[in-house]
């Protein structure tokens, strides 16, 4: 016997959660782009998408985030932190890949120095994930040892029912349990079976990839130049990635006041590592592409025990020249022994 939520009761849930002080964010398609945004009714939700074009990362690590407001005078300065607003949020309809992205980034933002901007948002959010019954040619969660019903990073896991009329509901954390309180009367007991999750083919051998990357000889391999010839050095893959977290700090203002901001930056940009002296340790696209792959599947793993990839496939799905991580990792998988 499990608990289920029927689709026709979703609006009641939204009302209950909003009364409990949560704002509800769900997948929507607005202005010709699918992403997570606040909704007031289930009619606004686009739950049938394989996944949204933009990730929920945007709501925890926005593309531009005010850090500090400052005021300067010649012999005095005044600076105040601009922490994110209080406000509890429910993210309803997250895909397992996006949810795992949050869990993957937590250790980085907490590495010795705690990034309060990230954690304040994380602590105020509850992630309700819906397992995937559909995928497309770019999904690769299983290749990075996740799954269409992975629980990583989620507080509540919903499994679509066989009949398509609702979801099986499972709380995975204290926060998840707390979220189900206001809707406990809306949930029902049922023996309805969940639909099978989609089978996502494994596209590359991640163990072999990690082994090859760990070999010091691979760093200087000609492979990197060959595989990245068509990369144009934009930030699409990095900005749409649920786990990419590189940023720049910029001051914006006039002579006396301004805001110091944290803005997304990308290791694929030519100027990313440029020194003022003009020296650039990564001054070719191939060295930058190598950094991207090594960081995700070697450096990050070495420090935090997990690859910095959730297998969502957006890097390939959105790449203007049909690149992305998948092809590189397939090529490594297929390298002769």
């Amino acid at each position, binding site marked *: 016997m499990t608990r289920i939520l029927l689709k026709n009761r979703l609006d009641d849930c939204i009302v209950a959660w909003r009364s409990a002080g949560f704002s509800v964010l769900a997948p929507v398609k607005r202005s010709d782009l699918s992403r997570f945004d606040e909704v007031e009714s289930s009619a606004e939700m686009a739950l049938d998408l394989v996944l949204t074009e933009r990730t929920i990362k945007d709501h925890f690590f926005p593309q531009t985030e005010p850090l500090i407001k*400052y005021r300067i005078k010649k012999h005095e300065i005044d600076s105040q932190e601009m922490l994110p607003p209080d406000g509890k949020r429910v993210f309803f309809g997250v895909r397992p890949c996006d949810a795992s992205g949050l869990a993957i980034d937590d250790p980085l933002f907490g590495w010795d120095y705690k*990034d309060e901007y990230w954690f304040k948002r994380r602590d105020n959010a509850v992630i309700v994930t819906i397992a995937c019954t559909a995928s497309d040619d770019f999904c690769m969660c299983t290749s990075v040892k996740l799954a269409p019903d992975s629980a990583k990073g989620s507080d509540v896991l919903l499994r679509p029912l066989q009949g398509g009329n609702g979801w099986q509901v499972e709380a995975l954390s204290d926060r998840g349990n707390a979220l189900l309180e206001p809707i406990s009367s809306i949930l029902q007991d049922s023996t309805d079976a969940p639909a099978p999750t989609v089978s996502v083919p494994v596209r590359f051998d991640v163990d072999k990839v990690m082994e090859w990357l760990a070999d010091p000889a691979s760093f200087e391999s000609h492979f990197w130049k060959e595989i990245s010839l068509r990369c144009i050095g934009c930030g699409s893959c990095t900005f749409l990635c649920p786990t990419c977290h590189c940023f720049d700090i910029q*001051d914006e*203002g006039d002579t006396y006041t301004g805001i110091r901001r944290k803005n997304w930056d990308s290791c694929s940009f030519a100027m990313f590592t440029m020194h003022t002296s003009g020296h650039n340790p990564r001054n070719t696209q191939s060295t930058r592409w190598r950094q991207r792959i090594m960081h995700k599947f070697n450096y990050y793993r070495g420090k935090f025990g997990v690859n910095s990839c959730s297998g969502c496939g957006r890097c390939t799905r959105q790449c203007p020249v049909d690149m992305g991580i998948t092809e590189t990792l397939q090529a490594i998988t297929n390298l002769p022994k």
Partner: protein
Amino acid sequence: MIYNPFPMRVVSKREEAPGVRTLKLEFVRQEDHEFFKNHYKTGMFGLYGIFGEGESTFCVASPETRTDYIECTFRQSGRVTTTLANADAGDIVTFRGPYGNRFPIEEFEGKNLLFIAGGIALPPTRSVIWSCLDQREKYGNVTIVYGARTVADLVYKHELEEWKQRDDVNLVLTVDPGGETPDWQDHVGFVPSVLEKVAPSPENTIAVLCGPPIMIKFTLNALGKLGFSESNVYTTLENRMKCGVGKCGRCNVGSVYICKEGPVFTAAEVSAMPQADL
């Protein structure tokens, strides 16, 4: 919290060499000063900046034995350093730090110290030099080999004089061929070749080496020839930084984040890094 810098008042500034300035900074807030005193060890760096312009990374040039102020020395090269270079006494600038790891100078106790620096890389070395000279009795022989392109480019000129006068310090100065003035009394030649000439013994000696990459490369060769092992040679690395706390993803050399696991490394650790990422 972690991105909010300390306000610092400029106490004085000094022109060390063409385009190179030292700022002496004092803390505006008592609690910031306490934090610094409790955390700063020689080798650590900070992000110095000005609201409205940005932040720039340099070492803390003052030693861990003198924490009532912060000294930083930098070359005017970009937006932030130009504004810092134009700061006057009384102006407020910002400091974020101290970050990074440290020179383990307690492990150097009882040993001879060989300091080698080139040009604008004297500041980080100088921080260690004074940290040791302020506790002189703990260390053996102290030799300092310092060279710059020209006489004018030598930094901390007044301290060079001070070290020259001390009889418990062996100071070897050099300028590049062509950089000497008519009254120059010391060596002429690149640091690595002067080092080979001075031929310090590797016996019970720790070397601290800071300089531009090309100088480091040739000096390491020279040290190797003299019998120094790479694990007894300490150096510093630098890279472009923004956050200083390991999150913005840009300062790594291979898997090593300069801001968290550096900037102090042994030469052995540097050799183990992918050289193509330096």
